[in-house]
């Protein structure tokens, strides 16, 4: 499954990119996160939520999504 992964705010200071594509075989959001934690050392220490196709999901959610976004704390307004 080809997944687009988007990073926002302070997370981009860890990933040094805002978007990447990953051909991923796992079935759960948590598996994808494990892969990303291996790729980006300090990512695990950061506070963020995950959105799948623009809806917030928890780690145990099934991966269905073409688009996964890692969202640090909101600061609108």
């Amino acid at each position, binding site marked *: 499954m080809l997944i687009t992964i*988007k990073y*926002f*705010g*302070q997370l981009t200071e860890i990933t040094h990119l805002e978007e990447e594509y990953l051909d991923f075989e796992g079935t759960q959001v948590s598996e994808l996160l494990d892969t990303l934690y291996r790729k980006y050392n300090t990512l695990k220490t950061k506070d963020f939520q995950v*959105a799948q196709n*623009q*809806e917030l999901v928890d780690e145990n959610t099934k991966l269905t999504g073409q688009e996964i*976004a890692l*969202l*640090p*704390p*909101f*600061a*609108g*307004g």
Partner: protein
Amino acid sequence: MTNKKPKNVFKQGAISSEFIGESIAKHQTKTSIGAHNIFLGQVRADVIDEKTVAAIEYTAYEDMANTKFDEIREAAFEKFELTCMHIYHSLGTVKAGEICLFVFVSSPRRKVVFKALEYIVEEIKAKAPVFGKEIFEDETHQWKVNS
């Protein structure tokens, strides 16, 4: 999520006082309105560890944010008897003293506008994926978190 493309809430840079004045003027033809309530978020020159915030640089997950703003708008229209409602949020750099959020609600009667406006602003703060980088005068930065 509906299929219709949500309205774009974002504006590049600060929201000007002229823009706000013009928005108010546009409502003078809507003569069923008796009360307007406007919230403006302004960037504060906070001092943190002796360094002063000079600006906030806003980014957003724009598609998701516009969908969320749309859901917030729909929910507010269901909850409260409103004639109209407008939301604008800045993207990019907004200097201290400038306006980054403009929420405007109007209703025939006043009681409802206070409740509606507070509801909408709190929902925006909690649910809109918008991120703010506080730039200090010495060009270092920290990431803003809503409280």
